């Protein structure tokens, strides 16, 4: 089988690259081993959350921080792509999500939003699904702002979200933010409550998807709203509840409508909080991107890892896919490698060190193994292994050991790239979209 472009990897970067290339009129095949990154992510688009690893306070204006970062670190993917294309890619992406019925929103002045996490910590992000936006804890630009106290609602028998824990942590975060000069003074107060799941069968634990399916039904929402109204009538902790936060399960595809409906029923603003995988907002986003890709003519091959590549005279001719029934070869003019970093399986680490398994591209790493990680799992400076990646030139073409372009018709995108610390920078989606977009344009 012959294509113009073969994209390897079904995460955010791969889906974006496939969509962009197909819209340029290319015949595209997307090969994915499984469904991954989006289903474990929040559904928000982080651009740049922290300027330096270990910073106590987040970035307010991400575009300024991005310019500074690009100047200091020319190897960073943002520096390779350049601010104008990063901005263009995000605008394009937001448009695609709007068309797909999964609209994203950001702050009015291009500042980061501060949204609550499923642990009650505070996360800076640039764009969020419209269904999450009312959870913004502080309008950093101070112009409009979502204010008002929060009621965090969880469900009995749903083990992935503990509302009291979330509320208590948010109140603690308020103390921390309030103590920093120049930061927010009108931090909202949060209270948590757990309600029973209407019409529960009690046959098994409920997953996020189970709840999302139920939230698509008007009758279920009505019963939930009634329960919450009962809670609000009893609530005596002094909070002036203006907003109700749910775990991010308000519908699989019709979350926008479900949220509007709940707001009407409650007479309060409603928002979703991203939780543990499987991420329902991630499922929605993956659905939008895959549907758009198919509509643009992309063929999707799921469940089959790429196990090898045929490279001749510095050009890749084909890749080999291991399907459940046999190995198949797919030829193309250009290839985009978007298989993820160490966490995504795009970089394997064994006793000999880290390696990129499909093309055997070199992966830079500290020589001494004890320098790869720090003793604490949540070390604020981050781990070196999370920065393992493939070096590329200005056109996102991977470099060989000699520093020259290794394979001329191969481009790399997403977390696989070297030069960033997205885990600690909070920049994973921004990098995936910007480099995926650029790879889709340049392949």
């Amino acid at each position, binding site marked *: 089988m012959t294509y113009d472009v073969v994209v390897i990897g079904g995460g955010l970067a791969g889906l974006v690259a496939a969509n962009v290339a197909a819209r340029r009129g290319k015949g595209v095949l997307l090969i994915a081993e499984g*469904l*991954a990154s989006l289903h*474990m992510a929040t559904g928000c688009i982080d651009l740049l959350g922290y300027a330096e690893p270990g910073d106590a306070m987040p970035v307010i204006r991400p575009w300024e921080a991005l310019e500074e970062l690009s100047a200091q670190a020319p190897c960073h993917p943002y520096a390779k792509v350049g601010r104008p294309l990063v901005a263009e890619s995000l605008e394009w992406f937001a448009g695609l999500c709007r068309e797909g019925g999964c609209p994203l929103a950001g702050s009015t002045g291009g500042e980061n939003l501060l949204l609550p996490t499923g642990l009650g910590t505070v996360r800076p992000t640039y764009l969020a699904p419209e269904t999450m936006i009312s959870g913004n804890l502080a309008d950093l630009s101070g112009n409009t702002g979502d204010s008002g106290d929060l009621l965090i609602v969880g469900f009995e028998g749903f083990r992935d979200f503990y509302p009291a824990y979330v509320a208590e942590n948010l109140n603690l975060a308020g103390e921390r933010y309030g103590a920093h000069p120049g930061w927010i003074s009108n931090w909202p107060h949060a209270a948590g409550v757990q309600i029973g799941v209407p019409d529960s*069968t009690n046959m098994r634990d409920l997953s*996020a*998807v189970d709840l999302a399916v139920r939230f698509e039904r008007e009758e279920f929402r009505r019963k939930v709203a009634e329960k919450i109204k009962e809670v609000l009538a009893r609530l005596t902790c002094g909070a002036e509840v203006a907003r109700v936060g749910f775990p991010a399960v308000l519908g699989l595809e019709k979350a926008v409508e479900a949220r509007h409906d709940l707001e009407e029923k409650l007479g309060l603003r409603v928002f979703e909080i991203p939780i543990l995988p*499987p991420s329902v907002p991630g499922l929605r986003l993956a659905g939008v991107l895959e549907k758009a890709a*198919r509509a643009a003519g992309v*063929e999707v091959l799921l469940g089959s890892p790429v196990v090898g590549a045929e490279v001749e005279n510095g050009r890749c001719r084909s890749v080999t896919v291991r399907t459940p029934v046999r190995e198949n070869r797919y030829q193309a003019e250009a290839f985009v490698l978007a298989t993820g970093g160490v966490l995504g399986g795009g970089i394997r680490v064994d006793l000999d060190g880290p390696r990129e398994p499909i093309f055997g591209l070199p992966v830079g790493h500290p020589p001494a193994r004890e320098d790869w990680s720090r003793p604490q799992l949540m070390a604020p400076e981050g781990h070196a292994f999370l920065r393992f990646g493939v070096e590329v030139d200005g056109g996102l073409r991977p470099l060989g050991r000699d520093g020259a372009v290794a394979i001329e018709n191969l481009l790399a995108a997403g977390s696989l790239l070297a030069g960033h610390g997205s885990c600690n920078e909070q920049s994973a989606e921004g990098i995936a979209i910007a480099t995926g977009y650029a790879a889709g344009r340049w392949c």
Partner: protein
Amino acid sequence: MATIQDSETERDPRLTSDQCIKCQICTAYCPVARVTDRFPGPKFAGPDSQRLRFLPEPVLDLSVDFCINCKTCNLVCPSGVKPSDLNTLARANYVAARGQVPRNWLLGHAELLGRLGSAAAPLTNLVLRDRLVKAIMEKVMGISKERTFPAYARRTFARRFAGRKRGRLHGAGGDSVPSRPRQAAKARKVAYFAGCFANYNDLELGMAVVEVLEHNGCEVVVPPQVCCGLPLIANGEMAAARKNGEFNIKSLGKFAAAGYDIVFSSTSCGLTVRSDYQNLLGLEGAERIAARAYDISEYLLLLHDEGRLDLAFEPGESPLRLAYHAPCHLKAHGVGYPAVKLLQLIPGVEVTDLGKICCGIGGTYGFKKEKYQISMDIGQELFEAIRNSGVPLVASDCETCRIQIEHGVPEVHAVHPAILLREAYRRAEARGRANGRSAERYSQDKDK
């Protein structure tokens, strides 16, 4: 996610349970878990419960019985776990330890039903359509009275095919199938595995596959074959499935060794022989067959890639609008949707892709009384998509998907893509003959 794939996990799918990172992506995409709480989902039924099945006294849990065997979980898992395979093996262990229920034994032995049904047709069809009989079958056997068994043909495909060959050797005419491969010199040799459905129920499908292959210069044989064993596997009858597998491997193996490609027109038979024989049954020699085996649409597309597919399709009178439904077991092949590409080669055909929705039948699953409603609830999304598309015709590669589609949306007709290809070739031939005749007439007129 990074997977630890060593030779051991490739040999035994049960060992993939240790690779599970509990992300629940499988449960998020499981069609059964989405509509009922009676199935705990692939993660819980599969890798979570597997550790209890490794105990010296394995825990037997019948919740795996609600797994529909669509294999979606195997595909979406980012860590290389095969929950569907774990469930299937666990179900087999349950049946081995606790014994089989008669209903599942019978559904598992679908081929026996085919043989008996065929022998007594058309009486069988009358009986099986009778309301009273259906009510009794539901009460006594637990087979849903909402379902109708597909009609059985009086003669099997194998006999009809054999008869056709004999007829031609003796010069007897009257066969509508084109008689001679066109590129005899470079003929590809195909051993066709028809499967029970084409053999006992839908003979026209079998004949269409042969006709399309021969039209494209392939030499076609139908080797001795028995049921692939999928209904047996799905109902926990592993020993019987293994027996069938051994027979088929021996029979097909001879043709594979002689340079024949093995072609399937049922995606599920194909997947069983190509994948399950190795991965679930551990049958020796299965890999030699898998290496030469293809789904019919995949095979024709391969011919197209080599420039050997006859593209002289004749469109129908009016443009043909149809929808395509991709069976879950086709997705499990990992070869994309070759039928869509083929159908798009026919001028005037407009194909709507219905997306990646499961139809809900799951082979014999949807015939079971306690699972009928689950099966229909899963199918709802597909039924709606078909109704919304407003097409009169749905193409799908799997026989039970087609049964479910016609059951859920009675106003549409569901066909195998090979049938549509044959029609387009036949129209082309008819036109060729008509042109030939008019040319003849023209020259006669001139002579006058």
